């Protein structure tokens, strides 16, 4: 088993963020060094003003997505943000912001939640994770 995991987090909907956060927490629990690269909608979700709001489900699944959102609420599934925070508390999780997306969306470092460790370019991320398993969500 690789001792590193790389996750490119592109999506900003609640369902995909939940899946991403759960994968990260599994890796963190198993002692795997985990690097998350936030880009596009994934980075947008880590803005301080976004992370406090419930985000919509992916439109890909229509009414079924809404039904799952209702079930997650009823069963008190912890938010993706809390799951990610818990993973970062327990394990070796490094969250990186994509410099290009920061520039594109006019996001400043101070706009992002504390969990984000740094702002890096994609080549730096690839260098950090060249021996890792890579996931794209």
């Amino acid at each position, binding site marked *: 088993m690789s001792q590193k995991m790389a996750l490119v987090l592109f999506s900003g909907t609640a369902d995909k963020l939940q899946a991403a956060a*759960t994968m990260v*927490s*599994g890796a963190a*629990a*198993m*002692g795997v060094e985990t690097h998350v690269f936030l880009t596009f909608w994934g980075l947008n979700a880590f803005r301080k003003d976004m992370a406090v709001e419930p985000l919509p489900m992916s439109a890909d699944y229509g009414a079924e997505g809404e039904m799952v959102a209702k079930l997650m609420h009823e*069963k*008190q*599934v*912890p938010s993706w943000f809390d799951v990610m925070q*818990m*993973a970062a508390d*327990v394990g070796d999780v490094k969250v990186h912001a994509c410099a290009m997306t920061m520039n594109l969306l006019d996001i400043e470092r101070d706009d992002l939640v504390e969990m984000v460790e740094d702002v890096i370019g994609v080549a730096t991320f690839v260098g950090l994770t060249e021996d890792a398993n890579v996931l794209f969500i």
Partner: protein
Amino acid sequence: MSIAVDREIDARGSFCPGPLMELIRAIREGAVGDTMAVLSGDPGSRTDIPAWVQKAGHTLQGVEDLEDYSRFVVEKAR
């Protein structure tokens, strides 16, 4: 009869991987030789908790399957 432990964590109602994360925190807070039990209704725990215990080098003393949850007893070994 249930195995007696130093600390019991009730993580029933907590979702994957919540019970495992709660166990990890409790193990970190405890002393070597302490035993802990975690109660979980999450079916993922059935594989995840033993896998973590082995990987982290602790001892799984037992798993008790109760009505709609399981009780995992772990000794902090290091």
